[in-house]
């Protein structure tokens, strides 16, 4: 990702901000120009829920460029508690501990880095909810 593009996305990636369709009420993430459900252009920013449930998941063994150092890692489709669906890495979990229905919460991690001299891209990932022992 180019530095200007990363910079434009910072708020959304750091704070999990999506959009609410003013026409059909759908929650959209990541941001789009139009609502994918009804085509409406009137979209408002909205803060997404930071907790959710795993719907499905997979282990990435051969990652795309820029993500090599994190492999193998888990990517899951997560249904957030406000109803939005989000695709995210899940960390602090072993693949054998992953299951459909696992409760997860947002965390803040390094997502990608441009070599050892370039920009470090930070953003959300999810992890099993931390509870009192």
């Amino acid at each position, binding site marked *: 990702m180019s530095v200007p593009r990363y910079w434009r996305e*910072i708020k959304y990636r*750091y704070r999990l901000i999506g959009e609410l369709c003013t026409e059909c009420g759908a929650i959209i993430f990541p941001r789009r120009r139009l609502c994918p459900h009804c085509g409406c252009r009137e979209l408002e920013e909205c803060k997404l829920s930071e907790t959710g449930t795993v719907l499905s998941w997979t282990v990435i063994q051969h990652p795309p460029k820029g993500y090599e150092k994190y492999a193998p890692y888990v990517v899951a489709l997560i249904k957030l508690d406000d109803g939005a669906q989000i695709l995210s890495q899940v960390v*602090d979990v072993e693949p054998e501990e992953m299951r459909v229905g696992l409760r997860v919460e947002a965390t803040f991690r390094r997502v990608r880095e441009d070599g050892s001299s370039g920009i470090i891209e*930070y953003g959300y990932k999810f992890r099993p909810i931390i509870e009192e022992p």
Partner: protein
Amino acid sequence: MKTSRPVGIIGYGAYIPMNRLKASEISRVWGGCAEPIEEKAVASIDEDAVTIAVECARYAIKRAKIDPREIGAIYVGTESKPYAVKPCGTIVAEAIGATPHVTAADYEFACKAGTEAFQACIGLVSSGMVKYAMAIGADTAQGRPADPLEYTVACGGAALIFTLKSERTLAYLEGSYSYVTDTPDFWRRGLEMYPRHGNRFTGEPAYFRHIIGAAKGLMAELGYGPEDFKYAVFHQPNVKFPVKVAKRLGFSMDAIKPGLIVPYVGNTYAGSTPIGLAATLDVAEPGDRILVVSYGSGAGSDAFSFVVQDAIMEGRPRDLPVSAFIARKRYIDYSLYSRMRGKIHL
């Protein structure tokens, strides 16, 4: 030092990565010496001082129940900045939603960078310049393989939010004291990955002299003795030093026990004293007085006296204590540790 208007802590939050490396695993690889702690916390490959600082900041805001846009200052104390030039404080400010009306910067003073940020935040709040000020100590400290330091250098942090004392503050400040000299006990030059240290020189003229100087200075200024404090937190580079300094200052083991997390977490550098304070606030009762004394190589100590207030009881059933992060763990071996901490170059 005393503030012109009373200042308190309205929120605090700690974070410790879940990976643990046992001291016995380091001995297995490099040959045994006396193991100074049980195990230490190690950041995952996608964690660094910034991500740890953000976690701490978010927990502190949750506990404080404040609007992050009202935070007027964010200072991150760390010696493990991911960027040599580009502040951690700006990333933290953006991640918690405190931008753009905020002053932000990083503090550097080895293991006392976090408490140095306390001093600045306390000053900004008491002067009325800002409503809330957040000080964070967070590190992902590195030790050279096979160096005795490798047993203890660890990852973690804690954040404190200061504001004027009120019924909502969890504890208030009675006074602070700083004791600083030029003492070359430990250093790391630019572009070097690992620090160097003066071995035996790190004890008596460094750690003990500065902690005792700051603790005695503060107690003299406030007219207190060790018997006036229910709890005490001293910087924890290993188990031996804080126990020894507590004894020399006249504090009991019971006083330092709640904040003594180093056996299970390691030395989190700028995070060490702040996490110790957080763990002590987790168990303290209203009216308890807590002495907090950090130590940073180079060298210096900051001492603080806090008195716990009633509001501390409200959040207790809701907010995660430091013990939750200590209990959450997965053991890694030396190979995974080497990969996570960037010790293997491809």
